[in-house]
């Protein structure tokens, strides 16, 4: 159920994001979701792509500092309180969230959210118990 996420270190200067997405495009890699967290000097770009291993390799080959980690993708009902149910389930199980971001899929009236937690397997169990839909890697890569 775990989804591979690519993180890329970027300096805050113009053209860096275009460079990364260009390299991915040239290698026929499709981006499903992305998020950027930044300070004044640098940012970390997080990406969900259809071919994570390829993406990691081509970005490394192009000199970027890159890592690949496991995250969880969930779908919550797109109505007030939808996300809260999922987060409460994790909180009850004392699972901390490192970071999360929502993204837009081409489906349904569900909201899609990426979660990075310390204990992903335990988190999935808890989410399942609480009837939160956890997306498979294949589903997410295909979005």
């Amino acid at each position, binding site marked *: 159920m775990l989804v591979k996420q690519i993180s890329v*270190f970027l*300096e805050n200067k113009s053209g860096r994001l275009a460079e990364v997405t260009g390299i991915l495009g040239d290698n026929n890699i499709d981006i499903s979701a992305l998020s950027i967290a930044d300070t004044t000097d640098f940012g970390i770009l997080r990406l969900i792509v259809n071919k994570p291993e390829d993406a990691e390799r081509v970005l490394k080959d192009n*000199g970027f*500092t*890159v*890592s690949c980690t496991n995250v969880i993708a969930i779908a919550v009902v797109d109505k007030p309180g939808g996300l809260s149910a999922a987060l409460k389930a994790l909180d009850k199980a004392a699972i901390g969230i490192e970071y999360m971001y929502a993204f837009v899929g081409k489906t349904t009236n569900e909201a899609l959210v990426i979660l990075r937690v310390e204990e992903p397997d335990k988190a999935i169990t808890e989410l399942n118990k609480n009837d939160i839909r956890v997306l498979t890697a294949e589903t997410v890569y295909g979005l």
Partner: protein
Amino acid sequence: MFWAKEQECIQRDDLKNLQLLRLKETITRVYNHVPFYKKRLDSVGLSPEKISSLEDLKEIPFTTKDDIREHYPYGLFAEPMKKIVRIHASSGTTGKPTVVGYTKNDLNTWSELVARVIVAAGGNENDIAQVAFGYGLFTGAFGLHYGLEKIGATVVPTSSGNTEKQIMLMKDFETTLLVSTPSYALYMAEVAQEMGIKKCDLKLRLGLFGAEGSTEEMRNELEQRWGIIATENYGMSELIGPGVSGECMVKNGMHIAEDHFIPEIIDPETGKVLDWGEKGELVITTITKEGFPLLRYRTKDITWLNNDPCNCGRTLARMAKVQGRSDDMLIIKGVNVFPSQIESVLIGTEHIGPHYQMIVRKKGYVDTLEVLVELTDGRMLEKFSELENLERTIKHKLYTVLGLDAKVKLVEPKTIQRSTGKARRVIDLRN
């Protein structure tokens, strides 16, 4: 191993007699052939016949790089041009280059001195030696080239640049000895890694690094990355080029060819001669050169001297690794900063690459120092706090060494400019 054991292990008393004899010859030579020196010596009431001991050296005025520039190009040559068989010049990053001339005897002396350095470092006739210094007016490449030929090694004069090809040749030619600047050797190691070439694919065993200062941390990094013994040698075109001093296998200071050069250490501010062991600016008097002798040349290099017996058996004094150049020294917020101090902090710090750059700016009346380092470890990307901690750790280490607050900026790999010659570490934007 010795190239010239008799000279390298000379009794110190015999050395002093030889130095005095040669000093007198040199002073006679320049007094009679170089108007500049005659005027300088006359101005302090000295003439060749008044030199009776090595102590008299202290009375002679210093010669500086500006003096050489003012007599550009041939004004300080002590032999007519028909006797000069070679010209070299400094890189001359600022203003006119400093030009030096060699007679046939000078070229021979040069080869001999570099041969000593190579053999002291562990080189021998079986070595296949790749000279990755730029050939040209710069003395580094030719000096090592002659020395290596002298000892019978196989010389591969690749010159600098074209790094991937260098590495291909290194592998195919089974190079055992590398000559380059330390920063270029580091860059080559990086490129070799990218090319998928491992230490075990290469026969490299020994590095002779010079032409720019480096730290003990840099040496460790080079030894570990290449799987070699890394040695350092020292020289400058004004003095003769490489061959002035070099490390023996003990790797604890560079033995100076004192039978050809008289070293002194002075306080760079006052010009006062300091004792053995005290740190200051190296001043060198050449005592065998014909074409371009120099009296009390201020090298601007900061080091100290040691004439304790060395385990290798050489009696020639050693100079410590150059701690910085008095003109490399930055004064930031009133604090003296040498790039080498920053290097010693950064090399060996986890998660970052070995390349760095310092940018000095002025904000209003206040100097600021920014240090750029490349983040190379992807594992740091999971938590923002880890990156912030890394910046903080480096900042703290710098503060401990410099006593100065520096801004640390993490940058992407390969964005700090690589050099195939001498690295440009400092960008001073204050003026």
